[in-house]
């Protein structure tokens, strides 16, 4: 298409000259020209063939102007981000769409929820497909959020000035878990009911401390938490209503806002973190502006840090349109396609209708809480509240405790970090597996000293031992490497591998009564 043209302004009637086709002709001309005029009124520019047009198309587009006009080539490399943020966002959008469709048919009442699920499965056109997509996307989103966090951590992208964005990321992490968890209950089947029951019991776990102290009857924060969560002492209509409101309104709204801020900060913090070496290694001759700008940019904002300043970095940047745009679009569609395929091939589980009288055995929480559930088995308080709070807090504090000025945007911050990560991986693996094997084989304090006070168990259990081992390891690493970043890598790696192992262990090797089994096929028949 041609270059962006200056739109001809229609003449006022006073200026109209004789010989003109007249108002009627003009009307006809307008009518014929409507598609072109309408298009121009929407996109306001021609096909982005020039840098300027490309920039303009980003600038003038509500949806696109979240992107910087130009984007660093380093940011576009797959190895920089693995596309996880975009995939997560794509999943969020996908979930929103499918969620709205499901909401049309879903009835959030204990009497009707299950039936409406069945209707969605059987008679709502493509209802089963939509539900499958929603389900798998939800799981994928949790996974992607965790992976995204790991990526950001390992590339040290949380460093100044992005500390707060890391915090926002943590908030989004919690929100994602909350979204997934609240959605888990809605089908009102046995899986949902008992998973939420377990979850609610985890919320109640501070009771272990208050019970041990004998103050439960005066002060029962566990029960308060549980009631806040369920609106009752048990999972029922109150819980369902509550979860539904959270799941379809409160949490998505919050997530949307936080995502917006997250992305906005991403822009304002200078785009994706990249090492100083990125400019050196980048192809300096990538793209040269074809023309002098017809227009100079106004100052949009004053931002800190390295900004894509005029002249300096132009060599290493490309217009966001189409490079970033295509990357985003391709990732989004790829994600969509994968989710559609999953939804097409695999049906989301829907078990029997929730029946409080028939406990599932084993009743398992959603998979991302299974690591916690495993630790809850050791100590309800530590597994349910103590350790997760500690981990979330620790994660949130990473950017504030590790303030070493070194290149962000580099995986593992270099070879020493890579080594620390590897050793820590092996260490975390050994500690976690060792403790699990030990516990399964020999039991723990309660089995050896049945009369031992619960507080001792709360303080000393496999979960806390693992945490302690990791803390010691991390401190040793800090001392040895004289680097807080290395300590952070050591700690994060340990926790990540531990989370993975515990989740795997609880998923595969825990059977009825939370007993150990090699395989689910060995579970006693019931």
């Amino acid at each position, binding site marked *: 298409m041609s270059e962006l043209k200056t739109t001809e302004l229609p003449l006022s009637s006073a200026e109209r000259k004789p010989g003109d086709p007249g108002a009627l002709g003009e009307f006809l001309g307008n009518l014929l020209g409507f598609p072109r005029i309408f298009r121009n009124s929407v996109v306001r520019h021609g096909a982005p063939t020039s840098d300027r047009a490309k920039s303009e198309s980003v600038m003038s587009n509500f949806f696109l102007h979240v992107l910087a006009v130009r984007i660093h080539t380093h940011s576009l490399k797959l190895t920089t981000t693995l596309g996880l943020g975009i995939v997560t966002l794509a999943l969020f959008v996908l979930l929103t769409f499918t969620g709205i469709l499901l909401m049309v048919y879903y009835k959030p009442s204990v009497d009707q929820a299950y039936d409406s699920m069945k209707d969605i499965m059987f*008679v709502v056109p493509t209802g*089963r497909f939509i539900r499958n997509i929603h389900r798998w996307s939800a799981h994928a989103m949790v996974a992607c959020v965790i992976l995204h966090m790991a990526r950001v951590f390992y590339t040290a992208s949380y460093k100044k000035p992005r500390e707060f964005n890391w915090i926002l990321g943590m908030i989004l992490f919690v929100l994602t878990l909350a979204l997934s968890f609240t959605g888990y209950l809605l089908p009102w089947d046995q899986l949902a009911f008992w998973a939420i029951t377990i979850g609610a019991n985890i919320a109640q776990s501070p009771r272990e401390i208050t019970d041990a102290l004998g103050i439960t009857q005066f002060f029962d924060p566990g029960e308060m938490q549980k009631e806040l969560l369920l609106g009752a002492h048990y999972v029922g209509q109150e819980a369902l209503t509550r979860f539904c409101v959270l799941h379809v309104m409160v949490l998505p709204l919050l997530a949307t806002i936080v995502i917006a801020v997250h992305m906005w900060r991403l822009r304002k913090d200078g785009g994706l973190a990249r090492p100083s070496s990125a400019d050196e290694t980048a192809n300096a001759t990538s793209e040269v502006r074809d023309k002098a700008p017809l227009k100079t940019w106004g100052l949009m904002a004053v931002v800190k840090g390295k900004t894509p300043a005029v002249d300096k970095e132009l060599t290493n940047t490309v217009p966001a349109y189409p*490079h970033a745009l295509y990357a985003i679009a391709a990732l989004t569609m790829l994600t969509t396609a*994968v989710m559609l395929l999953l939804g097409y091939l695999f049906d989301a589980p829907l078990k029997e209708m929730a029946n409080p009288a028939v406990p599932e055995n084993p009743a398992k929480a959603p998979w991302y809480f299974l690591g916690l559930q495993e630790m809850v088995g050791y100590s309800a308080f530590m597994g349910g509240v103590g350790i997760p709070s500690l981990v979330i807090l620790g994660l949130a504090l990473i950017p504030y405790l590790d303030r070493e000025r070194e290149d962000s945007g580099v995986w593992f911050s270099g070879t020493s970090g890579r080594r620390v990560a590897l050793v820590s991986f092996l260490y975390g693996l050994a500690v976690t597996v060792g403790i699990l094997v030990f516990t399964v084989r020999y039991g723990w304090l309660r089995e050896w000293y049945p009369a031992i006070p619960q507080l001792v168990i709360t303080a000393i259990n496999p979960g806390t031992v693992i945490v302690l081992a990791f803390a010691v390891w991390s401190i040793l690493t800090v001392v040895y490497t004289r680097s807080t970043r290395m300590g952070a890598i050591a700690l994060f790696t340990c926790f990540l591998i531990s989370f993975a192992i515990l989740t795997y262990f609880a998923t595969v090797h825990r059977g009825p009564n939370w007993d150990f089994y090699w395989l689910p096929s060995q579970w006693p*028949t019931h």
Partner: protein
Amino acid sequence: MENKDIRRLKIILLVSSLASLVLLGLSAFEENLSGEWREHQVAYKSSLAEKAETDAAKEAASSMQVGFQQIFLPELDRVDRCVSCHVGVENPAMADADLPLRTHSGGFLKHHPVEKFGCAICHEGQGRAVNLEAAHGEVAHWERPLLRGEEVYRSCGKCHYENDLFGAEDDLYARSEPSHPILQAEIEASVPGARSMAEGKKLVSESGCLGCHQYRRRGGSLGPEITHVGEKGVHDFDFKHVEGEHTVAQWLYEHFKKPQEVVPGTLMPDMKLADSEAQQLTEYILSLRKKGMPATHTPLPPRRPSDPATGDQLYGLFCSSCHGEEGEGSTVRDPETIGLFDQPEELMVPSLNNPDTLAVASDDYFRHIVSHGRSGTNMIAWEGQENGGLLPEEVDRLVSHIRSWQDTPAPLESVSSARGNVRYGKALYESRCRSCHGENGEGGIGVALNSPSFLAVASDDFLARTILHGRTNTAMPSWPQLEADEVSDLLAFIRGWEHEPAKKEAVLARLVSEATPTERVLSLGEALYRFNCATCHGDAGEGAIGPSLRTDEFLSLADDEYLFEAIVRGRPGTAMPSWRHLSADNVADLIQYMRNWNGGNRQTLEPFIAGGDWERGQRIFIGSCAGCHGTYAEGAIGPQLSNNVFLSSVSDAMLKEWISYGKIGTPMPAFRRGEQGVTELSGAEIEDVITYLRRFEIDPSEIASRPGIGIPLRGADVYAAACASCHGPNGEGGTGSALSNPDFLKTASDGFLLATIALGRDNTEMRPMGKGGQGVVELTAEEISDTVAYIRSWETAPPIAGIPKRYVLETKADSAQGGVLYSQYCSGCHGVNGNDGWAPALNNPEFLAAATDGFLQATIARGRSNTAMWSFGRGAGGVVELEGDQINNIVAYIRSWEPDLKGNRTEAGGQVALAVGEPERSNRPPSHSTPGHSLSSPRHSRESGNPGPVRKSQE
């Protein structure tokens, strides 16, 4: 890089977009266009067109819209989409079509129109689903798969009442309304396809399933409740040991066939069901559903016949699984030892139709055990809503049913000692009676039988009735299985202990020989009279308990033979004993002495045979005589006239004379004279009366017992002072026998009581109260009469509520020695502690409350035929023979387990609480834990580990 990269991205974008589009399209196509139901409907449409004959039908066929169909039933909260495939279900033309288009079979849709009931309410499956497997519910996570064929009848119980075991209402008990179990007629009337379910219901109502399983608040608690067992899902069962597919029906089926294999350690007995029976039972059990459908969709509860469940039906429902179909008893698994491999697994359930059980156990005993159970055994308390749920009247009916297994005793009239054979009688006595009554009838556990004064007072009727009917709640069991001849033989043998009576000829010869008695004879006669007769007839023969003898009318008319018969044969059934132990001389002396009262004045009467109209005589008798002699001439103020011996010795002439002229000095008026308000009787009328009296000779069945003439209230004081120390304050027995026993009171006439009190019983503790001396309180005739009246009053107003006890053993017996004997002879079966063996537990408050000492004595002595309970009194077959004292000691030992021994004395029946804490365990005498029989038992640990009655339910 750009172009290449962008191209790559573009390709990814294109491919993934296309892939998404394809997937969307595919799924849209699959879910909307290729539904199975669509094919079926197309087939249906073409089939309709084929079958169409009329134009209208063709028109209808061609205009049929292929489209999704569902039945929406808001009032049932259901959506059934089955008709999307089963589109011809209501079309009669599709009767021969293949499934799924075929018409519904039978006429069911007439009463259950599809548009009102839908499909899945009966057929189960997943009504909301639209593809084959899911819709039929034959997929994972759907608990109720399609019911095929006759299985569909399992659903009827959701609305219909026919499968209820009893009572449609849930609040039966609250309204105290007796329940109605299944009636055979209901089975017969069942829908053909539901027949197997009805048969299953019959099995349940006859196999005693409710003995362990509760149904509508009635039944035991050893097994799970079955009221709504059909509601249970797969998750409620453990399929570990089920061989077939994992469905509820299969579980139940295998469980019924092999309970122990499906649920190891279950109490559920193997009922040896045939395959078909197990299937029927499964079908029935699965039909026990909750009735949760709205009234618009349910039939009215049936109006049941008003007959409540009979004892037979109740027995079938609640008892037969343990006690056997005919009460033959069985063994059941012991809930406390399940899983303990080294301990006996089976518990013996007492047989109920055992003649010995029925003979020894009273109705009170049965009622108490049924009502209160037997803690520590599988026998639960059955009466009351919080227990087994039986109503009191149902317990009564059950007890009557148990009682109905007992033989009917031989009629008393056909028993007579005179007809008996002494040698047969001796053999019978040896095997049946000796263990309690002693080798020579000297008594032991039972009373002394060889006491002459006892035998003198006890008529054949008395003895026969006692033998045949026993004495409830005492050690004297009933022997209804004895033939009349055998009882006669026994009586003949017992009577053999009596003295040979004085020879009539010898007495008469002496009387004839000495026309005027010598002084010595008179003084001898006086002494004899004072010692033997004055007690009742008064010192001067003026009469007291007995009639007056000292009237001229009597003495002049009574010939020697009459007097002889009266003395020697007595007046059976009255206070006049037969004085068989008086020698001929003594009798003669006595007669001489009495004759001397009127100077030997004798009168001879014209021979006279009455030949009147007895029916008129009866009317006259009732009008004029019954006031004193009783309606049936059984005697009251006046002597008994319906007495056989009296009638046989008195002549019609004597009777006529006495009636006509009365007896001066007695209340007997002269009826010929009609003075002082007495109705005058003509000679013919008197003859009629005599004819009537003679009838008693011919037909003795009309003889009734003589009512007391004393004043019970006064008698109570006398009793308390003179009798209570031995017979117990309420006649429950002590060292003396039980008097307030209904059987005793029924058997013993007032005369028997009067004579026994007045004359005592030789060779026993029973002293002659009318004679005084020997430190015994002397009672006047009036006091004796009052006492008898008081004792008699117990017949209508039993002094003891519940089961009377005789703690005779407490004083006489040595429970420490009993403990040793128990550990030697009893603990092997009944367990060291009386509640830890395989034989029925003895050491539980309910049993001890129900079982009287007599019950225990008799059971030990007599044993229970055809059970492992041997007769320890007979000692045959290698069993040790225990002496009466030894048995008493054992009983005393058993009794020592009873909590609150003393407090329970008289009101044991009503007092036993069902409390679990068993205080009797700590109350045991120290003798119990003597070495050798205490801690060595492997089951001893149960005592501390598992106290209390077993009420746990099988899980």
